[in-house]
């Protein structure tokens, strides 16, 4: 454990917990070392990306900026124009192949995120499996969860826990893992989110985390309350809307409003995609049965 105070602690925490605007607003931290300053900028720009301000990030980061920031810019470009994603991916691959910068942790992280979007977990893990930062390990946990390989996810989590069990990302990753394996572990996930909500200001991410834990435990009424609280904070948060759709269905209320809202604001959301594919699926099934 390093002796000096950790200046970026709050910024990182805000970012991980989804308080992106707060992270941006409180990013002016005096007396940062150059490395810390780059990390700070990465976090700030990643916060902007999380808020959907891709163009701002693309225009703000010029070509002279550090590799990490270039990587962040790449992510912004990837997310902003799905049409041009081929070129983005090819330049990403080019950079990754470059031995001087290919090992940059942020670049690898961004690579992991982009290939995850591409559902190319193999390629994603190629760059992230080695770990090195908490972010990378946390991303690994998520990739393995996505692959339904909770055994691998658990191993990654152990690594994180050994490094710093109380780190916000470790706690978050344990919550993801607990939710993914289900059963009695869900309670622990709920408690982790509960801890966050006691310790830090409420964010949509924390509220959604709590709500998802509640839903997994079959407690849809509490989940609904939490989600409505989250909706109050941010009426456009896609996960809040998606979870509200699910939750409303379970409590026997109409979900169509939330679904249309989600379709309008986030046509690419997983729920929207799932629903539309399910409609197709239905028609096909009707054909096959007839």
């Amino acid at each position, binding site marked *: 454990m390093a002796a000096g105070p950790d200046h970026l602690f709050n910024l990182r925490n805000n970012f991980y917990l989804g308080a992106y605007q707060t992270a941006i607003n409180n990013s002016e931290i005096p007396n940062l070392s150059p490395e810390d300053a780059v990390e700070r900028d990465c976090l700030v720009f*990643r916060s902007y990306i999380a808020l959907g301000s891709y163009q701002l990030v693309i225009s703000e980061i010029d070509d002279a900026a550090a590799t990490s920031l270039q990587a962040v810019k790449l992510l912004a470009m990837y997310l902003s124009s799905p049409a041009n994603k081929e070129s983005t991916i090819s330049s990403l691959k080019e950079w990754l192949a470059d031995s001087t910068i290919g090992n940059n942790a942020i670049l690898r992280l961004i690579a992991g995120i982009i290939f995850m979007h591409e559902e190319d977990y193999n390629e994603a893990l*190629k760059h992230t499996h080695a770990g090195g930062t908490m972010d990378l390990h946390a991303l690994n946990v998520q990739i393995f969860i996505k*692959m339904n390989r909770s055994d691998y996810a658990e191993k990654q989590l152990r690594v994180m826990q050994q490094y710093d069990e109380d780190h916000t990302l470790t706690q*978050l990753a344990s919550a993801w893992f607990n*939710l993914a394996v289900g059963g009695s572990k869900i309670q622990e996930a709920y408690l982790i989110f509960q801890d966050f909500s006691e310790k830090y200001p409420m964010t949509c991410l924390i509220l959604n985390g709590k709500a998802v834990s509640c839903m997994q435990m079959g407690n849809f009424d509490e989940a609904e309350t939490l989600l409505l609280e989250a909706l109050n904070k941010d009426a456009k948060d896609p996960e809040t809307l998606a979870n509200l759709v699910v939750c409303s269905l*379970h409590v026997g209320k109409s979900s169509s409003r939330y679904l249309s809202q989600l379709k309008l604001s986030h046509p690419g959301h997983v729920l929207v995609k799932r629903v*539309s594919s399910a409609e197709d699926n239905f028609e096909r099934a009707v054909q096959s049965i007839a």
Partner: protein
Amino acid sequence: MLTKFETKSNRVKGLTFHPKRPWILASLHSGVIQLWDYRMGTLIDRFDEHEGPVRGVHFHSSQPLFVSGGDDYTIKVWNYKTHRCLFTLLGHLDYIRTVQFHHENPWIVSASDDQTIRIWNWQSRTCISVLTGHNHYVMCASFHPKDDLVVSASLDQTVRVWDIGSLRQKSVSPADDLLRLSQMNADLFGGVDAIVKYVLEGHDRGVNWASFHPTLPLIVSGADDRQIKLWRMNETKAWEVDTLRGHMNNVSSVMFHAKQDIIVSNSEDKSIRVWDATKRTGLQTFRREHDRFWILAVHPEMNLLAAGHDSGMIVFKLERERPAFALSGNSLYYAKDRFLRYYEFSTQRDSQVIPIRRPGTASLNQSPRTLSYSPTENAVLICSDLDGGSYELYIIPKDSIGRSDFVQEAKRGTGGSAVFIARNRFAVLEKSTNQVLVKNLKNEVVKKGTLPIPTDAIFYAGTGNLLCRSEDKVVIFDLQQRLVLGDLQTPFVRYVVWSNDMESVALLSKHNIIIASKKLVHQCTLHETIRVKSGAWDDNGVFIYTTLNHIKYCLPNGDSGIIRTLEVPIYITKVTANIIFCLDRDGKNRIITIDATEYIFKLSLMRKKYDHVMSMIRNSQLCGQAMIAYLQQKGFPEVALHFVEDERIRFNLALESGNISVAVASATQINDKDLWYRLGVEALRQGNSGIVEFAYQQTKNFERLSFLYLITGNLDKLSKLMKIAEVKNNVMGQFHNALYLGDVKERVKILENAGHLPLAYITASVHGLDDISERLATELGDNVPSLPEGKTPSLLMPPSPVMCGGDWPLLRVMKGIFEGGLESAARGGAVDEEEDVGGDWGEELDMVDMDGMENRDIEALLNEAEREEEEENDDGLGWGGLDDLELPPELDTPKVSANARSSVFVTPTLGMPVSHIWSQKSSLAAEQAAAGSFDTAMRLLHRQLGIKNFAPLKSKFLDLFSGSHSYLRAFSSSPVVPLAIERGWSESSSPNVRGPPALVFDFSQLEEKLKTGYKATTSGKFNEALRVFLSILHTIPLVVVESRREVDEVKELITIVKEYVLGLQMELKRREMKDDPVRQQELAAYFTHCNLQTPHLRLALLSAMGVCYKAKNIATASNFAKRLLETNPSLESQAKMARQVVQAAERNMTDETKLNYDFRNPFVICGSTYVPIYRGQKDVSCPYCTARFVPSQEGNICTVCDLAVIGADASGLLCSPSQVR
């Protein structure tokens, strides 16, 4: 040893505790007896009448007396209230070593160097017995606490036990003369009323002290052979039990502890030793540098000891008495004896939770010192001073409350203090390195960190934060950020109490309370002369705390006050409203109800909640000088005004708050000159000239009055005043007024009358009153004064007043909040009531509405339904939009070839998604649909229920599928993680084992829907009702229930709903056929044969009756009417109509038209053609909803449920895992 109090003085030879008050008497070698209050630490009194050392002193147990004996051979009995020596008992012939009162008889026992022990009656002031037998100095003698025994110790190396039973008999029953005579003889010829019972020999040197055990037949003695001996006795003999060796010099004094099973001794070797009375081993030794110990005293009630030495005395405790406790929500965990106990505040239930390790007897003070509790993990951390500071971690098993006696193996560790800092983390202080170790519940170190200041204790300070204490400072340290969040210079902090919202903290030190914010920003400091013991925050942010003898409060602004006094110290655990929960020193939970009015009042005042203040003023009796002074001091004289009766105080307060009218009223009552004057001043300040005038008038202060009239321009009154002055012969006043009025003639007249002729002349001549001046000139004769030359005189005329009469514009007096408060409070109440009424009205209206529905006659019912129908059609249009959605290509199919290899790392193969597990495991259609395997689901439904038309089920399928996953945003900007929601979760479900999918439909929802359907039917909204019933019918195939009983209920529901669907379809059909009255009647008739709820049946019958009656099918109508009457209609209108129809039919029992309807012959109705299928005729049925059809319909889609193929083969509904097993 916990030293409570220490004195410096001459050598202390005798000590005695007062049984009730916190007092101790110390008799000194110098001859002085000191009376100390050891709680306050003050010398109360000194008694100085003995000559030479005073070796023995003792308080009486109930009267204000004490006895002392010294080297002047005298025993003195004192009254400490009157500070007098009452009398002196003479008789001993040498130094007196000890004196003691008997606990009930008026006796004193004394031991002396004259080798005797004497027993005195202090009421008759005589010696009643002399106990002889010792053949050296008697060092100590004392009564047995219950029996008629005396124990004595002597330098003759023996301890003797004396029986004084006969002495008691003599004093109690002196009735028998004969007996008395013999006793007198006995008295004369030497004491037979006290005989030696046992002589205890064993010490090889002189014995200095011997004392009885308070309850057991035991004696302990200490001698110059440096040994302590324990003796036991029974009725006939006494014997030595054991010897305690350890003292290095003569043992001065030894006794049993009043409450614990220990022996305490002190000695000239400068040490006090504590011994285990059962194991007879030394427990602890306390040494002093230079002072030999001479005497020891135990408090008869409390856990206190005192020891006298060469240069003073100490009052001390052996063990801490504060029970360790921790608060958690509405409950308290605390340690008592060898158990952890649990107390619930709301129910006051107290139960034993788990046994904790018995504190080792190897030394004292090892009982739990602090306790920390983590509610979510149900874990308790107990810290004690064992091994120089250590902790034990216990996990409370969920089910064992109050049962097991088995001590679980606790996780242990050493550390200065340990405290939970998060749900499953605790911090342990490592003093040697000034580090804090963060550990998890397995007692493994998770993290280590260096603390920012040299710390000797840590406390909780919010999740992840620690409050670190050093000698003179506390800081709050964030363990994750490694940042100091706040620091504060404080005296040595002993306890830390956080407010319920964690916004404020109270730091308790020995004599101070410091209130600070959560960042340790100082808010206020209180100083207490008495030790601060405990505290808790109440719900309003008031800190309630206890000292040794008071319960007090501290407001956020630092104001404090006493709530009540305490007999014994208590430790507050929680405060709710006016109830204080506390633990006493015996570890019992107690509840104290306090009068919170005073501090709540002050708090409201401080927070400016004036409405609350007003209501308290009106409703409670809080008063007293202190409160008034407080209000005045805090700048609320107007509030104080409400309390005061005394006029003078009222006047003062009124003046202070500028309330002139009250002041006037009070001033009138008192009628004191000074008050009038002050009233005048205040009124003048405010500009209220009327009151000023009144005040001046009352005090007859004419000069001020006239000046007032001058400046207010009230010339009439001014001239009146002039006249008054004239009457009163006040020349000066008269002149002044004339001057103010500008009345020159009057002035001249006054001057003339006063004999100032020259002045009068000059005045007259200057003002040009020539006739008068001439007259005066003649009167003056030669003495006419000359006017100064060369100066132009100007006349002194008063200016004319700017405004006349009335008040000036008044100063605005701060007022309103309180006067206004009363009014507005009253108004507020009224409005509330009105609002309440409004709510009720609304509800009433609703009810009227519903009743109205049922009461409608047939026509209205029809109209209503038709209107509904139209609306329904409108709605229908809105739904078209959904179909136009562009569907993106399918994305959900898993990618192939995920197992391509990279050089270093082998990517694991994809795991199986939960939905696949679901679809593999399940044979229920609903679960398959939730898993997204729509085709499997459809095949199942087709097989089970013959369903072929899936279009109506589409939305249900989609809902099931959408509801099967929740969405977790994990890593920022990365894809969302869908999580499968499982059904039937419980705390004990094991992870990684997949339960069935959670389904969005359940049976209870359907029952709700059924009720909605009924309601819609009742109110005649047939289209809506039909929609609801159909949706039930369309949901049932996708419902999953748990038990077989529920399966039956589901099947029953299908039948119920089917009947309604069929009936409603017919009814709607009937309404379309306006031009076919016969068919209309038939359909109405069939409707009455659907299996409906009685109210609906009545409505159907009513409708059928109406239709038939109108079509002149009177006989049929009367049949319906009879059936209606059979249902005992609750509505008189229905019954009446039915009776009328029956009567009409009696007159004319005919039918106009022939209907395909024979109510005598049982039938079912074809669901598609709506014709009766009478018993015996052939029919086919729907495999799902069981609706019947004429045979020609076979192979079509069922028109009732719109799902299944009529007459298809089906295995039956499968809707529960219990059917599959």
